[in-house]
């Protein structure tokens, strides 16, 4: 265990030791960030949720993770909720093996696609409620706020990121949840036709179907763990809720569009999602549905990269550069499309 842990981590360790009734058990700090502290003690992991987490919303999300309908999709919690002396909400989870960070090539893209397809098929009427909104767009908005707060000197990169952000529809910027699905933004089309691929009727209908899907809200490879060496499960329910399921596919989509994720990996992920009956995109060109959320996540990633690099006084790495370059292209295309 590291010497310098945050006060939250120290409080969490104390609480976890108490819960485990073992003052000597070895404790490992798995993550210690302002937006989440995670501590492991034996088979149990405790998470201190970000400050400001709504306890009622977290309770519903926890109920979803514990629900039998999500048993083979989401990791179920060990117990109910608690709180630290500083007021932060705490949840307990079984420990599971994460994706090896040094072997991204062995990433479980097929497992991730399958899990998302099953998550998106969960009948929400049977879940506890009221289900909060999926927080993907809200997190994208927070990344932009962080970039603005960093007040970086004017540059092509920051200007393009802010312009690409301004070109997104309100629902993707977390400002208007009701506007969704009225009309698809067509900018990302490769071809000029409508490309009606079977779910086009739903796209254009504006009946809000797609906003009534259970979504994870923050998919990346750190959100997959293998519990007891069995199949993969999704973890981290902080952003879980109702929303557009395309958002859950959009981070890998954004990586692929930026030229970072290999075409085979993207195809394995998307193919597994479709083969498992995933509802977010049709069987043909997925981009009419992916375009807006993938643009939002591209801009979110670029904004965070710019803010973090500036705060650390370092240059962008190659992957961050690729996301900024994608944002610049998005801004260019917006200008071309008027």
């Amino acid at each position, binding site marked *: 265990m590291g010497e310098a842990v945050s006060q939250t981590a120290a409080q969490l360790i104390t609480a976890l030791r108490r819960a485990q009734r073992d003052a000597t058990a070895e404790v490992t700090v798995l993550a210690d960030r302002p937006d989440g502290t995670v501590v492991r003690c034996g088979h149990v992991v405790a998470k201190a949720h970000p400050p400001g987490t709504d306890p009622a919303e977290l309770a519903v999300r926890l109920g979803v993770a514990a629900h039998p309908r999500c048993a083979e999709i989401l990791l179920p919690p060990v117990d109910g909720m608690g709180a630290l002396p500083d007021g932060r909400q705490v949840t307990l989870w079984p420990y599971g093996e994460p*994706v090896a960070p040094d072997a991204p090539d062995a990433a479980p893209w097929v497992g991730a696609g399958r899990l998302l397809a099953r998550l998106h098929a969960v009948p929400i009427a049977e879940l506890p409620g009221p289900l909060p909104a999926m927080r993907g767009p809200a997190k994208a908005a927070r990344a932009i706020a962080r970039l603005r707060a960093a007040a970086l000197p004017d540059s092509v990169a920051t200007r393009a990121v802010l312009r690409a952000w301004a070109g997104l529809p309100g629902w993707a910027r977390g400002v208007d949840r009701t506007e969704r699905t009225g009309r698809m933004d067509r900018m990302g089309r*490769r071809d000029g036709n409508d490309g009606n691929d079977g779910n086009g009727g739903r796209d254009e209908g504006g009946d809000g179907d797609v906003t009534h899907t259970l979504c994870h809200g923050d998919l990346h490879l750190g959100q997959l763990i293998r519990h007891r060496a069995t199949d993969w499960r999704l973890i981290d329910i902080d952003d879980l809720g109702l929303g557009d399921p395309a958002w859950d596919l959009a981070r890998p989509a954004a990586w692929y*569009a930026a030229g970072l994720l290999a*075409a085979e990996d993207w195809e394995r992920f998307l193919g597994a999602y479709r083969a498992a009956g995933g509802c977010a995109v049709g069987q043909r060109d997925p981009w009419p549905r992916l375009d807006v959320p993938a643009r939002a996540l591209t801009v979110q990633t670029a904004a965070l990269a710019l803010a973090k690099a500036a705060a650390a006084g370092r240059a962008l790495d*190659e992957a961050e550069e690729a996301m900024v370059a994608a944002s610049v292209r998005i801004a260019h295309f917006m200008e071309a499309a008027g």
Partner: protein
Amino acid sequence: MQCPKCHAPMHTYNRNGVQIEQCSGCRGIFLDYGELEALTRLESQWTQAGPPAPPAAPQAYPAAPAWGAPQHGHYGHHGHHGHHKRGFGHMLFSS
């Protein structure tokens, strides 16, 4: 600009450097003087150049958005694992 047929607003799109207006309601397309000719010219260039279409290519390169990285659509740069861009390994695991 409004659609002359259904009066819904029209949006401007750029297709291969040609500006076209498309109606957000009925999807009708409005072309300015010379734009149809420009599109026809581009089309004939495309067919003359002839897509090289490999004889057995059942697996096309997966679709990408218009703002995608320029290497999309080219064969050969992928198929080799293990040389991700610096930082991508870390990005795969972060929000």
